[in-house]
């Protein structure tokens, strides 16, 4: 582990996972979150990752990771194989977010989804004032270069989860790399003031 501060959504996710759980991290990158969960929560983790470098890094760490993608490779997992299935800042990059979410809550008893909030006031202001797709520190790629094909707002996501019959057990906004957001006592306000959000979902 690098001595760097833990990524904000990771520390929120860590807080949501019960000790000794079975966890699947979809889009697990270099396995940093899985390692964190193993160390701090004695979690039995597995991963799915698209990139070669990510998969190799995971394998070298002794993690079990399948090279594949969220859209196609969750089908092989049996129902309820995991206590939690995690999508950390991945849902905006999948082809069919609704289907992936359904799979998430089939394979896992609970789902944890972290995402950048496109409804944050800075995004809105940028779009209104400049009339261009926002480029921010959280979403630094230009519209034609980004892998984020399905960006959404916090409210959009909550609505999709509801439409799929999922229940939001907890929702944690994140601002300036810390849990919480000003005025974010309601979803409507979090939609303005959260830069990111982490949702803990279950089957309603």
């Amino acid at each position, binding site marked *: 582990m690098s001595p760097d501060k833990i990524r904000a959504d990771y520390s929120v996710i860590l807080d949501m996972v019960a000790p000794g759980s079975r966890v699947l991290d979809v889009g697990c990158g270099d396995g940093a979150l899985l390692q964190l969960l193993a160390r701090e929560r004695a979690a039995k983790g*597995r991963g799915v990752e698209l990139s070669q470098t990510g998969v190799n890094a995971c394998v070298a760490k002794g993690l079990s990771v399948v090279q594949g993608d969220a859209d196609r490779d969750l089908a092989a997992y049996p129902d309820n194989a995991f206590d939690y299935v995690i999508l950390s800042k991945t849902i905006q990059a999948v082809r069919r977010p609704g289907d992936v979410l359904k799979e998430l809550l089939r394979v896992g008893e609970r789902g944890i989804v972290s995402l950048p909030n496109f409804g944050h006031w800075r995004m809105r202001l940028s779009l209104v004032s400049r009339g261009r797709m926002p480029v921010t520190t959280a979403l630094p790629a230009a519209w034609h270069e980004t892998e984020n094909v399905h960006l959404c707002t916090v409210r959009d996501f909550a609505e999709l989860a509801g439409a799929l019959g999922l229940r939001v057990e907890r929702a944690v906004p994140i601002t300036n790399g810390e849990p919480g957001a000003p005025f974010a006592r309601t979803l409507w306000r979090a939609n303005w003031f959260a830069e990111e959000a982490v949702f803990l979902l279950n089957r309603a």
Partner: protein
Amino acid sequence: MCWAAAWARPGPPRPPPDGAPYGLRFPVITVADMVRAQAMLIEALGIKDLFCVIGGSIGGMQALQWAAAYPAKVFACVPIATAARHSAQNIAFYEVGRQAIMADPDWRGGEYHASEVRPDKGLAVARMAAHITYLSEAGLRRKFDRGLQQRDGFSFGFNADFQVESYLRHQGQSFVDRFDANAYLYITRAIDYFDLAQDYGGSLAQAFKESATRFCVFSFSSDWHYPPFDNKAIARALVSAGCEVSYVEVETDKGHDAFLLEEPVFLQGLTGFIDAAAAARGLALKVPRG
């Protein structure tokens, strides 16, 4: 523990009790038979279990068979560039090879060991056909393209004008020095018959149910002998059986042969997996890196 695919040495096999060479009297064997023999060997040697069973191609099939048949004896398993069932296309290519051998008059119905001749021409053609499936179109283009052996153009005859022809002929000819024609028939047949799921009610996942073995499956993007989807099918079955499994797909133009070549991403992944497995097993394994 590792083994290579090509272990059939030339020369007459040990004769049966009646003293005459086996020829085609030897029973057709399967991958499961090979693994059973290996298991008997390690038992005879007093080895209780294996830290890691690794194999590519037919070796990968054996590794899978090991993990399925003797799960308690296999701590880690690495199937590389392989399949849990041999495809129709591969059976077709193998059949071409066998027909080439059997069409060689020197094969003599499999009784060539009783004579001074060997079906070298047929065996060489079999190897040439098979070797094409170990390469890739992109790899062939990169290595040879339409390059000629002689700079002054076509010979307008049937000599090896193209570099790729000369390369294939060389592959075929060097193969006959180290491989026995009948062994080629038997081994290709064993691979044809391999379909691991068949022994487990048609479900590959069933073959690995309750297995505590940790797996790492490697495939190569341009391998059309055992393409990535064959390897991924293994990984998916392991996933659905609830096994600990990693699956790595290495980007390369070197085709099936990549698993025998210096392929940094592959070697890095493999080394990482073995090191991590060794640590999990409590083995102080130091892998020299250079």
